[in-house]
């Protein structure tokens, strides 16, 4: 601790250089925190404690195929099942095809919606804020793969883990080809308890395995993961960006530390002459790099909060709004950021510190300061 003032003063020996280097660390730390938080949001966990008891049933071959609505009655008979809501992803266009006008549209059965989504409540704000809707407003959505336009009336607003969708009555699709064929996209169902989920899934899968439309029943989380798995490359891209930027800043800080050490060859020779050992010089120079990186790390971690709040505000008004509800800076992310900061300091400071500790006193003193 008695060396701290010496270390601190040397860190800010060239103030503008120290602040610019810190700024580069701050930017990297903000980027790492944001990307890590995005990765966590992409690894979609609905955050619904009650969602653990939910099961989603889809066609065994994928979401592009549909199942007979008649399955509903059979599924309702499976022991452990509380309620079943047939749902269809409408995928319609609201106003126009611009991304900012995109939102999810799911038909459902209002009789059981509240049971299946019992952690949702009414009212809310997200889509209302986004489109300045009011209760009673007419919302026209033009179908894409389901032809026709549905004319909805906004009756209520919910809050929940994902507020980026609207739900409408299945009756609106009765006259569509799916309605006429008595088909649905998925069954969203609630079981009695999370422990019942594996048994219910097995029972449903077996029930329809030899039918014309075999199904795949899975826990809600697994269903959601299907979508984020499609973004596998995006995650790889995020990780690659984070690592590249991290490596770049290590080089920047290493260069700063090397310049700082080179400029102080005489100073280092003097303190060695005064009796400082090689190991002490090594620790002093390394500590300077770590202090610099930690200061940048703290500033970066603090700076990432307002940045993240702004980002969430923006994402909430985009087609990927669902991620905004999972986007938060976790303690694990902050720890990762601090570890990265210390790592930057150690990696960047190590070579200059070793070099400084090896400076010959005689050669160092011979240089004109």
């Amino acid at each position, binding site marked *: 601790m008695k*060396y701290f003032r*010496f270390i601190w003063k040397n860190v800010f020996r060239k103030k503008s250089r120290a602040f610019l280097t810190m700024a580069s660390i701050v930017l990297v730390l903000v980027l790492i925190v944001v990307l890590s938080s995005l990765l966590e949001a992409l690894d979609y966990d609905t955050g619904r404690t009650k969602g653990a008891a939910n099961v989603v049933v889809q066609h065994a071959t994928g979401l592009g195929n549909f199942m007979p609505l008649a399955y509903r009655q059979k599924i309702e008979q499976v022991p452990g099942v509380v309620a079943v809501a047939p749902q269809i992803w409408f995928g319609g266009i609201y106003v126009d095809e611009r991304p900012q006008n995109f939102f999810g549209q799911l038909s459902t059965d209002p009789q059981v919606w509240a049971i299946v989504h019992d952690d949702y409540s009414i009212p809310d704000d997200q889509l209302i804020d986004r489109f300045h809707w009011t209760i009673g407003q007419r919302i026209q959505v033009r179908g894409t793969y389901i032809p026709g336009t549905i004319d909805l009336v906004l009756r209520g607003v919910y809050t929940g883990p994902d507020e980026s969708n609207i739900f409408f009555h299945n009756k609106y699709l009765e006259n569509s080809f799916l309605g006429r064929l008595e088909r649905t996209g998925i069954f969203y169902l609630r079981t009695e308890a999370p422990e019942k989920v594996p048994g219910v899934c097995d029972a449903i899968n077996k029930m329809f395995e030899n039918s014309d439309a075999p199904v795949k029943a899975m826990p809600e989380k697994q269903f959601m993961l299907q979508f984020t798995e499609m973004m596998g490359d995006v995650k790889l891209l995020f990780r690659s960006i984070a690592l590249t930027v991290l490596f770049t800043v290590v080089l920047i800080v290493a260069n700063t530390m090397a310049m700082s050490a080179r400029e102080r060859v005489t*100073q280092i020779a*003097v303190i060695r002459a005064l009796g400082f050992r090689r190991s002490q010089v090594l620790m002093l120079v390394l500590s300077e790099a770590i202090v610099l990186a930690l200061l940048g790390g703290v500033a970066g971690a603090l700076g990432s909060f307002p940045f993240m709040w702004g980002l969430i505000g923006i994402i909430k008004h985009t087609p990927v709004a669902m991620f905004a509800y999972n986007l938060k800076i976790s303690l694990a992310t902050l720890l990762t950021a601090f570890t990265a900061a210390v790592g930057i300091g150690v990696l960047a400071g190590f070579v200059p510190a070793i070099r400084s500790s090896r400076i010959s*006193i005689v050669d160092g003193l011979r240089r004109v300061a």
Partner: protein
Amino acid sequence: MADSLICIEHVSKAYRRDSLQIPVLADIDLTIDTGEFIALMGPSGSGKTTLLNLLAGIDTPTKGRITIDRRVISSMRETELARWRADHIGFIFQLYNLIPVLTAFENVELPLLLTRLSRQERQAHVRTALAIVGLSDRADHYPRQLSGGQEQRVAIARAIVADPVILVADEPTGDLDARSAGEILDLLNRLNTEHHKTIVMVTHDPRAAARAHRMLHLDKGVLSVEEPAAALDRSRDGR
């Protein structure tokens, strides 16, 4: 020789530059007693600073033995030598070599960071050292806020703060005007007479050398002439 503080026996030093072996000092024998003030003179490249570095323990001889205060420093390992330097040697450089980001107080405190003294004890030592060199009122000044003479006095305070036995000074007045140089030499004299420091000073300045008890002359690595400083002083004054 038994009572000598510094005993240099058959010391040679050569540097390697690529495949070349460059001899700097040849078979030097020298003893310095406790409390002596030695001036080391000679032309540039004669080996004065090398000899100073050897007896200060920041360089090692190619041959021979250096014993200081009954300890053979020429065979010490580097870590041991660093500790020994911290305890026994005070350095005074031509260009002062103060740390620019530290105040005068912090610069003087630097050698004490290597000791086990408490913060209060360190502060007391630093205040004493600054008082000895007459710079108590400049403790909070940075080197850039001091004159050359004041910087050198801070450097001297740093050299004496850990109470070493020996002060080694490499052209301590080489970068100063005549008046400041005189003040520094007065201070060194005082440290020698009042505080009983053994001083070895490299200088080109005969006036500075005249302050010493003994003047050693090095030429091409050979300690060739040894004459009393007073004689040089007389020759300088034309008496």
